[in-house]
Each structure stands twice: as C-alpha cells, then as structure tokens.
C-alpha cells in the first residue's frame, strides 16, 4: 500500500575533479541496480533536474561525470561532499553485450566516454579485453579519465593499457577525428565484431556509417532534452523512438531507420528543429 518513492535524496560522498573548472565526477555511497548505458535524473534542489549516465558503479557506490556546459552543469560540478541531491532512476535500456566474448571496439567522443567507461569495466571484470578503445575530443582537457602527462594524476588513469587518442587541435594523440582511427584499425584488417560509440551525434552518425559499410554491429547512445525520463511526456522523442525508454542506446539498424537521427531534435518548447539550431540553443549563454 505504501506508494513507491518519487525520488531518492542522497549526499555527495566524494567529488573528483576530472579537469579543473571543466568536469568532475560525483560519487554517491549507495548500491544501485544498473546496466551500463542507463541514466538517472539528477535533481539539484532549487536549480533543475537533468539526465546523467552513470559513469561508475561498484557494489556500494556509483558516480556520474559531468561536463560544465550551462548553468546546471556548472552548479553540478560546484557541488561538494555532503551536499544533498535527488536521484530518480536508473532509466533507459543500457548497452547489450555480445552473447559470446567478441572483438569489441569502443569509440568515445569527449564526454561520450562517461557511459562507455562502466561498460569497459564490465568487460574487464568478465576477463575480456576490448580490441581497442578510441578516445577523441576537441582538445586535451576534454579527454576523460586520462592524462598521460601526469602519471601521478588523481584520479588515476581509469583504463590503463593500449588506448588510442586523438584531438581536434592535436594537443594530444592523433590530430583528427576518432573516425580516422577507426578506419585505420579496420584498414589494418582488424576483425571487429562489435562497436560501441558515444559522443556528438555527428560523430556517432559517422561511426554508424562506417560500421554499416563493414557490416559490424554498432550501438550508440543518444541525447535529447528530457522531462519525465520514463516515456510519457514526449520531450525526448527522436523520430518514432522515445529516447528515455526505447534508448538511450540504439543499434545501427535502429538509428539508420530513425528519421531524426543526426538530423532533428525537439527544443524545450517542443519545436522540432535541425540539430544545428538545437545545439545552438543548448550552448551556454
């Protein structure tokens, strides 16, 4: 008879600054039932509520990694241990691992590494190694969970090992796009059986194009403005898909049928606009 709780209030247990002033991971000490790729609605009382992927999960702790973009995310990275926030979820479907161990490649654009990281963790825990992890960003300070210049960095490198990096400005790794590195890998004849990609929609679109050309299954994680998080309000629809419940993870077959993938998105007022307009609206003001 007792109604289920609308949300859970929890205190920030630890904050790890990923890049000063730009990004941070907030940790919460509570168990959570979760599939990598799922997200929570994260409420800062008096401010707003937005969706964030869980970027870290262990039996008694979970974390979200936030990039400071607008007002909300700036307030989020300014939170301190002890601050009280609200969590609803987890919501969404999450990534699907292959039934059998397979040659997997991860392609992360900037903060697209956040949802992919716990999936890599799961793979490593299963005793499997990804074939490759390709991580690109605009510039060095947007690479996540990594800075090879500072071996004593705190936090330590999240997934040490053979990782491939690139930056748009060449400040770290290859100067260019993640797709260059992916094409490189495929050009060398690597047998890739599954690709997971997350990052800007245009990047994911390019990755999907490449994978479909090579007939490699690929999963991507989409981002849309969200309200309910559970499939009723319609704020997050992308074509005929409801991102918060059907997604946020979709496979290449789904996105290639999706009228609005890499094309259109809804503004907060429901207006359907092309992605450029959408991202302009989403820029910090």
């Amino acid at each position, binding site marked *: 008879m007792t109604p289920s709780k609308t949300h859970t209030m929890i205190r920030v247990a630890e904050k790890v600054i990923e890049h000063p002033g730009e990004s941070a991971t907030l940790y919460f000490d509570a168990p959570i039932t979760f599939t990598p790729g799922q997200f929570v609605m994260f409420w800062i009382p008096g401010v707003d509520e937005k969706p964030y992927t869980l970027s870290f999960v262990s039996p008694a702790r979970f974390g979200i990694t936030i990039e400071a973009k607008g007002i909300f995310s700036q307030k989020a990275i300014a939170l301190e241990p002890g601050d009280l926030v609200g969590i609803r979820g987890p919501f969404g479907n999450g990534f699907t691992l292959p039934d059998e161990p397979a040659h997997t490649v991860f392609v992360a654009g900037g903060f697209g590494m956040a949802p992919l990281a716990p999936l890599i963790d799961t793979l490593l825990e299963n005793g499997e190694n990804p074939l490759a992890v390709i991580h690109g960003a605009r510039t060095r300070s947007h690479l996540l969970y990594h800075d090879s210049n500072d071996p004593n960095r705190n936090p330590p490198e999240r997934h040490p090992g053979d990782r491939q990096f690139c930056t748009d400005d060449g400040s770290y790794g290859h100067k260019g796009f993640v797709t260059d590195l992916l094409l490189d890998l495929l050009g060398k004849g690597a047998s890739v059986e599954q690709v997971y990609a997350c990052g800007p929609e245009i990047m994911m679109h390019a990755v999907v194009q490449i994978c479909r050309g090579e007939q490699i299954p690929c999963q991507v994680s989409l981002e849309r403005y969200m309200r309910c998080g559970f499939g*009723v*309000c*319609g704020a997050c629809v992308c074509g005929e898909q409801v991102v918060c419940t059907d997604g946020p993870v979709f496979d290449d077959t789904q996105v290639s049928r999706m009228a609005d993938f890499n094309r259109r998105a*809804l503004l907060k*007022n429901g207006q359907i606009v092309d992605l450029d307009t959408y991202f302009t609206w989403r820029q910090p003001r």
Partner: protein
Amino acid sequence: MKTEFLGIPLKNRTVLASGILGNSKDILERVYHSGCALVTMKSIGPAPRDGHKNPTVLDLGHGMINAVGLPSPGYDRMEGEWDELARRNFPLCASIYGGSVAEYARVAEFVSQKKPDVIEINISCPNSEKHGMIFGVHTDSAFEVVSAVKQVINVPLIAKLTPQAPDIASIACACEDAGADAICAINTVGPGMVIDIESRQPVLAFKKGGLSGPMIKPVAVRCVYDIFKAVRIPIIGLGGITTGEDAIEMIMAGASLTGIGSAVRYRGIDVFDKVTREMNDWLESHNCSIEDIKGAAHQET
C-alpha cells in the same frame, strides 16, 4: 470494436491522451500503429512557451504528478510538422489552449485550417481575463470559450474538462449548449504537491502539479457518470485507465471512447493494443458489445 466517432471511422475505442508523447508526427504514427484509434497532439498554445523547469513529472507508484507547464512551439511555428501531418494516414485530434477567449479562437481557427480530424479544447487553463480562475470551473466561461471556438473551426469540437469544477455535469451542459460535439473527461486531478522533506521544498519546480494514473480512476469514472446523465453528446472517458477492465468500467459509466495517458508508463506504448485485446476478450466472454454496456451502470436495479 470498430466504430465511428463524430463521423470519423475508428479502428477501436482507445484514444491517446493529450500531452502524452504526442510531440511529432512520427511518434503519433507509432502510437497509432501500437493500437491506438485516435491520437491527440500535445496541447498547442498561442505562443512559444518552454514550460516549467524540471522536475516536471514524478511517478508516485499509484499514478503520477506533473507540472510540465504546457510547453508549446506556438501554433504558428509548426509549419514543418503540419506539412508532415497533412500526409498522415491516421485520425488526428489537435488539442489547443489559450489564456483568453480570443487566444483560443485564434489558435483554433489556424489549427482548423490544418485539417485535423477533430479539435479538442483544453479548458483547464487559467483564464487571464478572470484573474487566473480556470476556464473549466465556471459554466459561463466554459460556454463562452466553446462558442467562440465553434464559430471559427470546420471540424468537430471536443471540450476537455477538469475535475476541479465543483459540478462537472453543469460545465458539460454549458459546453454542449455552446456547440461542443463531444466531451473529454478528465484532465488531471488536484492539483497536488509533493514536498521533499530532506531539502524541505516542493519537488516539482512549479511546486504544484496535476495527478493522473490509476489513483484518479474513481474520480474520472464519477465525472463520466455525472456527465453522461447530463448531456447527449458522446464522451471520451479518460483518467487512470490501465487495463481492458478499466476501459469497460469507463464505458459502463457512459464513455463512448476511452483515453489512455499515464498507463503508457506502466504498460508500454502498446498499451492501446493490450487494452483493446482485453476489452475484446471481456466482451466475448460476456457475449456482448460495447453498445450493450455503454452507460450500463445507470440502469437502476
């Protein structure tokens, strides 16, 4: 279960409630293909409006509370969408709102030219001319807005009522007298408020929100029952319907069609298909038709 409603052929008795998913042609079409006979668009307003900040929608377990705040691109900023909808192959209901009688009429006239199959007017909005009093709680303002809209549109008109009216049947009568072709009942119940005791503040950014889902079904059934007694025009019964049995109950109260909103959360988008099947199974096992049971709860024993 096939039927005709205000001259529109419908494949069954289920209707998508306004404000649920109906933000674009693609998703409306998917809802239609998931078994819904008549899909309603998210309410369209007179001007662009972002709605409220989040949190806007919360699940209470036995229903939900929302204060989305009627976000709308504005009726005259949806050309692309109207173009796509012109090429639709499913029946469409366009829901509209305004803050004054003139605004309702302006939006309705424009929308009518886009040829939806029917227009629903959401009269649960604050009436800016009457200091925030809600249109749908007074017979005179309900009459006024329905008459004004009726004059400027070429498609049938549904008046969507709020249970906050102390006597919803008299509001329904006023709407019928003003020319409404059907009634949709009900909009959300309340409003309600959920306070988070840790942060000591209302959880919804707008503080108050409307209740929907299973917990409001008794209120919705009572409203439909009262309205059925009072009017001759058909009723879309809406509020808490989650199963075929809920829909049958609403039909027995007097509804011709049954709307579904929050249940999309609880049973998925194909809730329309599920509910239709369950209704059919019930009717078959009871060897009767919708017409046999419509308003059956009004028969005295």
